[in-house]
């Protein structure tokens, strides 16, 4: 399975399209949605159901929906704001810093 990270393009005819859609909902950054009629929307997708995806447009003020049938492709365009921010990541960083400063003081 592909890694759905920034820069990846998910086309509606891709075999892993459904997994891609789920990954988009999981992704903590913005995506660009291109519709079959050529319209594009940039925003944060937060939910998915049988017929619609639900998102907040980057520039709009309200929640919005798009029918899944109208989607041609989705590009993961924004930064993943969660990348490297987990508790484990932080513990690793902290331990590395501690080890570094311990080494320094020993020297």
């Amino acid at each position, binding site marked *: 399975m592909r890694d759905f990270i920034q820069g990846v393009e998910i086309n509606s005819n891709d075999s892993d399209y459904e997994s891609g859609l789920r990954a988009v909902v999981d992704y*903590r950054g913005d995506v660009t949605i291109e519709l079959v009629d050529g319209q594009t929307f940039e925003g944060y997708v*937060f939910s998915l159901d049988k017929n619609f995806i639900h998102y907040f447009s980057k520039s709009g003020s309200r929640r919005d929906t798009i029918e899944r049938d109208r989607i041609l492709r989705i590009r993961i365009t924004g930064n993943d704001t969660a990348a490297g921010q987990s508790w484990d990541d932080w513990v690793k960083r902290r331990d590395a810093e501690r080890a570094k400063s311990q080494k320094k003081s020993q020297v």
Partner: protein
Amino acid sequence: MPTRPAKALNVAVPISQMWAVASYVLKQKIQGNKHYPLVLMLEPLFRCNLACAGCGKIQYPEHILKRTLSAEECWAAADECGAPIVSIPGGEPLLLPQIAQIVEGLVARKKYVYLCTNAILLKSKLDLFKPTKYLTFSVHMDGLKEEHDEAVCRDGVYEKAEEGIREALKRGFRVTTNTTLFDGAKPERVRMFFDEMMKLGVEGMMVSPGYSYSKAWDQNHFLKRQKTFKLFREVFHNAKRSWRFNQSPLFIEYLSGTRHFECTPWGNPTYNIFGWQKPCYLLQEGYVSSFKELIETTNWDDYGRMSGRAECQDCMVHCGHEPTAVDHTFGSMKGFWATVRATFVGPKIQSPDSSVFPYMSRPKSISADSTDTKAARG
């Protein structure tokens, strides 16, 4: 060493609040309503003035962090849900210009409001609020200065929070603390922290283990759960009489491995700018637009330890299990007397060296495909 009561651990919840919860739960029982909410988790914003390690609530694009719920949306959610208690986490709710208005409207509805805050702004914002039995500032404190400042990734926050707590107490507000204990917490330090909070004069403390996410049913799961039992046994065995808690004593027995509770994922439903979060405060599997839809369209059997879902195997957090404890209290005479006994005599806590653990039925199976679920980042 045998199980022993924890020397009458005090439960610090006002009688009026206990009565409000008890009568609400009994009403649900009489009506045969199984999926009733106990606490609405109302998240009016995700923005925060801290960036704590691992906190998933702030990991959103800037335009999402700028969005907030209006007071009307908050009140509508509280009305729709009907829970007697509303907890306002975040983000940092005190950053919201309309927070006092939101609280005022909830208090007018006779909701018991727990405004969760890191207390950095507490002292400067107190003028916005009026002391009432319906409003409690629940201050995030993850331990003594060293542990807390490390957990929130900023020096000086502990002192700032202490200052806010003192001022709020001086002005007659209800103040509690909420503490998450992670792997590596030192029991002696936690006990010292409880002493400090009691000296400070808070009404009560809430404590919960951090969420532990695992993907496979292996020995690690048992170790994690047993680690939690051991930690809480070490903390609560020989508990001090002076400690007061703002939570069910049966939940403390559960954390210490004296008894077992399954999760009640609908107990603390979450509402935020995206809508009603499916299925619980920690897992994010999408949102629905109404509370009714959340309750009626979620397949609740898919969640909790018994479901076999990998993410739920080690989860022992309060938002899923304290509602079970409360339901147990009012669900049977046995549960009721256990609560009375634990309240007046103290919860039964096994010795930290004990190898006695509660019986847990084996889950159906651990679902491999559940790993693609949105992982908890809360």
